[in-house]
């Protein structure tokens, strides 16, 4: 354990820079993925015919191994193979694949009686969606976002096998020097990052759904 700490302090500026890259690689695709999934998921929940194709395309996208996307995107986007942009785009696609279904299921899970009540008190369809249906779907959507966040973080590590420079580089360095210290450090930082991200999302959900606390008390 001491070795790990010494390694950290000896290489702190490099590790902070990697940590920075890793954090934005974890956050940005999640945010963009969620923003894109919301309208698509709404479409799938609003129109019955749209649900099966949207959900199966998402499922199919999710079966594509991450390494395939990390490799193919440079050829498609014209980026360098070591560019973190490939990782960001690939993770965004995974987030969309996972979240579209979650958003659709979440919106569908809202009790139709609640929706009728909202219409009856004068909400337009758009107001009802944004002020009633979406907030009530938040717990389901939030659960999906948590899964996407944690799986994103571990997919970022895979990208380092191709040489993309971020926290996962600790693993490749440990491998090339046959030294387990940087590997332990990398594992600890990755797990911590996943846990912190998960806790933040939970906290956000807690704040955004005050009515659940009122009921559960």
């Amino acid at each position: 354990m001491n070795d790990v700490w010494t390694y950290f302090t000896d290489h702190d500026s490099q590790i902070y820079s990697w940590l920075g890259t890793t954090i934005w690689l974890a956050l940005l695709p999640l945010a963009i993925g969620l923003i894109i999934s919301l309208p698509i998921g709404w479409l799938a929940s609003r129109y019955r015919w749209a649900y099966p194709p949207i959900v199966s395309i998402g499922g199919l996208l999710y079966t594509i191994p991450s390494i395939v996307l990390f490799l193919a995107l440079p050829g498609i986007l014209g980026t360098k193979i070591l560019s973190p942009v490939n990782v960001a785009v690939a993770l965004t696609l995974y987030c969309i694949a996972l979240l579209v279904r979650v958003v659709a299921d979440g919106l569908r899970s809202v009790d139709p009686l609640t929706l009728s009540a909202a219409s009856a008190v004068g909400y337009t369809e758009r107001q009802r969606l944004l002020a009633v249906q979406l907030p009530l779907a938040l717990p389901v959507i939030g659960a999906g976002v948590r899964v996407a966040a944690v799986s994103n973080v571990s997919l970022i590590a895979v990208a380092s096998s191709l040489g993309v420079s971020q926290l996962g580089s600790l693993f490749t360095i440990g491998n090339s020097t046959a030294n387990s210290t940087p590997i332990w450090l990398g594992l600890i930082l990755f797990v911590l990052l996943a846990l912190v991200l998960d806790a933040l999302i939970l906290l956000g959900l807690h704040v955004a759904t005050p009515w659940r606390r009122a009921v559960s008390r």
Partner: protein
Amino acid sequence: MSDLPSLGLVPGWLTTAAHWWGKHGLLVSLREHVIYTVVAVLVAMLVAIPIGLAVGHTGRGSFAVAGLANALRAVPAFGLLILLYVVVSPKIHYRDAIGWLVPRGALGSLLPVEIMLAVLAIPPILTNTYAGVQSVDPEVRDAAYGMGMRGWQVVRQVEFPIALPLVLAGIRSAVLQVIATATIAGYLPFLGGLGYLIFNNGLPQINDPDVGYPAMIGAAIVVAVLAIVAELLLLTLQRVVVSRGLSGRYRARSLPTQSSYVTANP
């Protein structure tokens, strides 16, 4: 702009017979990839299903199981693999081949890969088995006890068959993950699988129009196709093994009066 060989070379690469046959051809790599996957998933099933059934049946330890499964999920597979390799491999001095399964010198790489893949496959199977048993209607369980079944009989003849769709869903997502992740086995020396063409052979000479980028993408496409085929096969298996009383796939004629269990759990 990248100076990689064009993606347009990939179809030509994939349709060249020489890339399928041969010592490190796609077919040999594909077979190795499937073996790595099957071994890891079987080991994970042997660990996860009994624990999941026990926890679901007794209701004891569910908190620990959920916590452990979540923690395992957060561990990056690539880091775990490298750690196991750096720690385990120097301790293994057995260098001979083991049958046709383990080539000479490969045990020190293969063991870390299989452990990593099994660890990866355990959480989805474990949590789904446990959730499947938990979701069994308490009235159904009571009825089984009422008919005189013992604890073990209830698990084997009632809870497990009812939980089976969820267990199989867990196995499906485990297989998917393992197929995708087994690719990084090729990162270690002596090992094959489709990752060999990507990491061992492709990455160091990525600008080569024959064994470089086009070969890496070609192998990667085969991984994706393998994942999709495995998913379809397992879905078919699920249709066969899940009790018709659960899936509701009766022929119209033989449909009994509405089963309250099925309608209560759509």
